[in-house]
């Protein structure tokens, strides 16, 4: 494996000290990153000691080192998965050619845009979650939040490394831009819609890490196939960390469900809200919201950009090797495309056979939908085990979409077309409304800092972290 240098300011396995120019660029960027972290990172916990995992190398031992660390002192490093010797490009028009170790000029702008778009999501989610610590349901969850946050920070570093190494001055400017945009600020918003949505309480946080970080997983899977080898190796390593984020989301939602079911049993009317819990109907609304804004992140169903990314061997399919044909020039993807009727309501659907390459976004979305369903099934098993027949569901992918062929049209969660009036009058039953936000937040007014203790609305996890007990002091408060 490649050698790891940990003695320096920036732990890395990319031989940073051997590339003085890059080292200087990154050392110039680092203080700006720290300033950004202090301004936009988790509010109010910068002096605390957090029991965090730090990657110090990419091998099995090195990527999960646990210890107490203050967040601003976290060692954000640059790690690429080990190089595959003589790697060949495995899809698209350049299939069989040696993987690019430098950016091909022809694709420079496209690659830069891909990397910036991915990179922008990393600091964005930290910003979205910066106030959550102040209402944490336990020290265990607080620590998990911070683990997610510092790793999103590391993912930002990974993208900034690529920008600085391979994209010259433009890359450096883009690296600065990543620190200048702000989630939800209309003057300098983050690039993608879901990353400007407020994530203002823990229910949204768990939904976000389950649904939105899962989009990240699939984007990273697709990019880890890239013919541009540094991008492929960087994203491959990021995937190991992303898995933890989705674990936080999946188990977080599961624990709320467990608690809700318990409260339903305790209440004589089966009403979890009456007992201070988050009722399943409300959870369904948040599923509907975060799932659909995450679906949008995959881009248009029929996309010439997607075709060009694939054709140029820049972005493949998730687990490309599992597909039989890596050129994707033959064959089509059948889609039911809405046909507009009167009043902007889709009257019917027409079948369209989309060339495979143009359907790459939808193919990736298919994988995502299937994967997202797995966690929902687990949640439903927990509900069934508690003796209730309610089922949580993923809405039809036409529902509540802001991009692609369904954008601007209205459908109910089953995918049935609605008029604008029908939509307006019913959407409050399907998506969180102000009253839901107020209610959920009312459960989370004060943080729980006592080791081992859980907020009323969530069940404890079955075990602690890295063999530590549940009442371990995962976060040592400084005051």
């Amino acid at each position, binding site marked *: 494996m490649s050698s790891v240098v940990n003695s320096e300011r920036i732990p890395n396995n990319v031989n940073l000290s051997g590339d003085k120019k890059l080292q200087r660029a990154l050392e110039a960027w680092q203080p700006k990153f720290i300033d950004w972290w202090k301004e936009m990172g988790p509010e109010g916990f910068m002096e605390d000691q957090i029991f965090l995992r730090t990657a110090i190398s990419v091998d099995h031992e090195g990527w999960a080192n646990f210890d107490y660390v203050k967040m601003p002192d976290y060692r954000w490093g640059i790690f690429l998965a080990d190089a595959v010797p003589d790697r060949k490009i495995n899809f698209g*028009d350049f299939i069989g050619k040696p993987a690019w170790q430098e950016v091909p000029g022809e694709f420079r*702008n496209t690659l830069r845009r891909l990397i910036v778009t991915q990179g922008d999501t990393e600091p964005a989610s930290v910003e979205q979650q910066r106030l959550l610590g102040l209402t944490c349901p336990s020290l265990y969850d607080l620590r998990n939040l911070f683990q997610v946050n510092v790793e999103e920070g590391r993912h930002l570093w990974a993208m900034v490394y690529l920008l600085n190494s391979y994209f010259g001055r433009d890359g450096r400017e883009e690296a600065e831009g990543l620190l200048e945009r702000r989630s939800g600020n209309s*003057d*300098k918003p983050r690039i993608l819609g879901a990353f400007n949505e407020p994530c203002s309480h823990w229910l949204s946080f768990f939904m976000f890490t389950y649904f939105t970080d899962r989009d990240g997983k699939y984007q990273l899977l697709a990019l880890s196939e890239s013919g541009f080898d540094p991008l492929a190796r960087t994203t491959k390593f990021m995937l190991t960390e992303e898995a933890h984020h989705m674990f936080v989301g999946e188990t977080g939602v599961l624990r709320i469900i467990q608690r809700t079911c318990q409260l339903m049993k305790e209440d004589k009317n089966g009403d979890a809200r009456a007992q201070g819990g988050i009722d399943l109907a409300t959870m369904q609304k948040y599923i509907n919201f975060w799932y659909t804004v995450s679906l949008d992140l995959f881009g248009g169903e029929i996309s010439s950009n997607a*075709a*060009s990314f694939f054709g140029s061997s820049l972005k493949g399919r998730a687990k490309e090797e599992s597909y039989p044909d890596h050129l994707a*020039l033959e064959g089509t993807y059948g889609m039911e495309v809405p046909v*507009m009727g009167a009043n902007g309501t889709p009257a019917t659907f027409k079948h369209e056979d989309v060339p495979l390459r*143009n359907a790459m976004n939808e193919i990736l979305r298919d994988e995502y939908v299937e994967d997202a369903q797995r966690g929902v099934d687990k949640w439903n098993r927990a509900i069934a085990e508690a003796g209730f027949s309610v089922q949580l569901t993923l809405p039809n992918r036409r529902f509540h979409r802001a991009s692609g062929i369904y954008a601007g049209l209205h459908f109910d969660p089953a995918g049935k077309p609605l008029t604008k009036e029908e939509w307006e009058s019913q959407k409050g039953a399907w998506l969180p409304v102000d009253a839901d936000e107020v209610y959920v937040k009312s459960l989370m007014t004060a943080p729980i800092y006592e080791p081992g203790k859980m907020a009323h609305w969530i069940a404890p996890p079955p075990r602690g972290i890295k063999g530590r007990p549940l009442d371990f002091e995962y976060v040592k408060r400084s005051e």
Partner: protein
Amino acid sequence: MEPSTHAAPQAPVRFETQPSSYHHWKLSFDGATARLAMDVSEEHPLRPGYALKLNSYDLGVDIELADIVQRLRFEHPEVKTVVVTGGQPKVFCAGANIYMLGSSTHSFKVNFCKFTNETRLYLEQACSESGQHYLAALNGVASGGGYELALACEEILLSDDGNSAVSFPETPLLAVLPGTGGLTRLVDKRKVRRDLADVFCTLAEGVRGKRAQDWGLVDQSIPKSRFDQTVIARAAALAATSPDKAGPGVKLPPLEVRRHDEGERAGADYRYVSVAINRGTRLAEITMLAPDEDPPSTAAALRQKGAEAWALRAFRELDDVLLDLRFNHPEIGLVLLRTRGDAALVLAHDAALASQQDDWFAREVLLNMRRVLKRLDLTARTLFAMVDAGSCFVGSLFELTIAADRSYMFDGSEGEGDAAFVALSALNFGPLPMSNGLTRLQTRFLGDPSHVAKVQKLEGFLDAPAAMKAGLVTFTPDAMDWEDEVRLAVEERVSLSPDALTGMEANLRFAGPETTETKIFARLSAWQNWIFQRPNAVGERGALTMYGRPERPEFDWRRT
């Protein structure tokens, strides 16, 4: 791609529209400011087969825009600033619809580009001549033709929201050029440094925010939170530079026209203009009639007359005929221009207009006349003027004679048959310049500029020998030769290659200095039309053909 000379019948394109029929634009008024929001309806393309996504446009969208620009001048003299903005989220305008271009014939593409170019120039003329300032408020991505529309505006404000950008992705994405004067306006109008323009034109994603301002691509990049208020303030500031115009606006009613189309023959009859088309001989004859009454004696009376005023109505009708010829009759190669009626009345109307030029409406009538005559100059058909007995090629109508590639004047001075006459008026010496900035007479006599002053002194009606001597007509056959001469000229002309004629005529028509306008059209025909024909764009593996398809384009790398 090219259809045979007798193309499969398609519904003809019609250029008349009105506000209640707009699909793609939302026009609202607030005092001296009009807000023009582009909100293209995806499902209303001019022809079936493509959807107008992302505020992309086709000819139908541009016909509405042209109508709006025209109506604002005549119907809304109170408007001093027109804010052009995007009516859809995140995108101002994505330019001409690529799938529409990909599925169009070459001649349609050329005429589409020409028409959109004329509309952009009309918009610029409204800024420079009519005191209606167009302000582009880019609240989303303006790419390709979208940015070109902004470039035609007097000022460009760009929202700095991390998304809004200006771009010319044509070269890197489609292997063609921005087709609506964008390249010329970039370096000639906005005077963007050519090296920066070079970078900009190869950067598919375009330029945002402060850099767009630093490079001169936009006038101001404004944070989103202050964007709307800045646009309002700038609109008001621009409006303050325009004087008020007297009286109410003048409504433009639909043109009344009777069309006929049977077999080889087609045609249309308007009040003052008629056209007769013969597909068999590939000949069209346009006849313009003189006014049949005295002109209104004052500017106020002319405004009262409104759209019925001869000089407005007749030239609006001619405009409609020219567009019909360009788009619906591609096989017609030669147009004979004729006039009929009382020449003295034409001169009287010309004189009245010339004396009322201080009034906004009279001025708009003249500006419209100027635009229509330019449209004639830019129509890629051979034009012969037929100055025969009973014609009235005088003053403003004399411009038709010298807009034509040649003129034939009947010499009746020997007393056989009625004589033909031409005469000049004030309108031949200034108010109706060509796109090169010169009058047609100045352009005609480039070799001896003093000759223009000499012909200006020629008073009254000139017969054929006098007109010939003054260099005002090409040939003057007499009664014995007239029919044969004309027949031979027509037969010879229609036998020549239409492509060679288009190129030859365009080269000969625009002598004299270059202007932004002449550059735009010359480069459009020379470069864009060349590239539009080349395999690298439209071949089986060309970039325009492959756009949106799964495969990547392949180029023939040899440069000329």
